[in-house]
């Protein structure tokens, strides 16, 4: 459609407005009509793309949430790693949640930390 408009514009430039006004006006109207059509198409396509992007984002978030919940569900009692509890004082209980192991790093805390770190790493690319 763009090429067509371009061609028509070229044709329009070859027509003398004074000598062939009727033809000139007809062609111009045609170009205008085609341009409007193109704009409508572009708008529709942009809207569709935005919609697809939105859906993908939503699906991604849902998957991420499901993965996290399943991980927490599966490993809620197993610490990711165990450190001497005095190293983590005074937050050892918070860090160990929900394992309850003294000095352990719980899956919840670890997921939060990993999320943040990955977000920072991906920040330059987004």
């Amino acid at each position: 459609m763009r090429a067509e408009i371009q061609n028509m514009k070229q044709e329009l430039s070859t027509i003398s407005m004074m000598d062939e006004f009727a033809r000139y006006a007809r062609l111009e109207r045609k170009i205008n009509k085609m341009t409007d059509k193109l704009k409508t198409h572009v708008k529709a396509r942009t809207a569709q793309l935005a919609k697809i992007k939105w859906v993908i984002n939503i699906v991604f978030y849902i998957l991420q949430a499901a993965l996290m919940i399943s991980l927490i569900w599966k490993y809620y009692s197993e610490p990711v790693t165990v450190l001497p509890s005095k190293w983590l004082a005074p937050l050892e209980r918070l860090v160990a949640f929900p394992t309850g192991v003294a000095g352990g790093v719980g899956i919840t805390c670890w997921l939060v930390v990993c999320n943040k770190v990955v977000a920072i790493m991906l920040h330059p690319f987004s």
Partner: protein
Amino acid sequence: MEDGGGAGAAPAPPGAPAGLSASQRRAELRRRKLLMNSEERINRIMGFHRPAAGKDDESHTESKLQHEQDKSNSLPIPSVSKRIVLGDSVCNMAGTADHAGSMVDLKGDKDLFSKSPELISEGTSELRHRNRGELPSEAAPRPPRHGLDQYLSRFDEALKLRNQLMNEKPSQENGNAGEEFDSFRIFRLVGCALLAIAVRAFVCKYLSIFAPFLTLQLAYMGLSKYFPKCEKKVKTTVLTAALLLSGIPAEVISRSMDTYSKMGDVFTDLCVYFFTFIFCHELTLFFGSEVP
């Protein structure tokens, strides 16, 4: 010109012509009273209390405004355009002084509020040339529009003030604020990662790993003065808009947002620190034979 505004409870407006019939005068007084009530309510909502000598002040501002009005001679301009003009003037005033933000707000509100009696007086002057039957149709929509205008002008004013405050900071210090902020942020993150490695290597045998982190944060707070302050893009969320509309000064909101973002930064640092620490710890366990 008549006095307008303020004299809602007076038996007859001082500047009112004697030619008005008693019923017209009563209608006019009622209208004024209604408008003043709405104005006071908005004042209360916005948190501006008028002093006891408010009436004198009011009459002063009114006379000033009327003088301006005489100058401009543009009374029939719709109230919205007036709002914009006022907002601009308020912002210009705000641009001159940083700390006078609240005062400027007050002034702006004063101006805005005292503008309404002018409109009222305008209404009353029009009233003279009007039949009584036309009065309700003209007078009825005024108070809600007036309130809405004030809300909108307040919102505009707050947004402009905030933008100005945010724009002034980088212009005072440096032009390339965005890049500098990135460098400071990278500096922070790298510092946290290095500290985590150092702590894992040397310190953590003796004390909690969070103690050096807190020390580092204190150091960053001190160091942040020497880094050019950056302009963070203010996200106008629904919450921000709601707070602005409910009359909380823009400065307070921007400060609380600033505190919130600082807390977010500290949390990010903590995450990086903890992640690096655990990563180093696991590496040490994997490659070395050190058992904690």
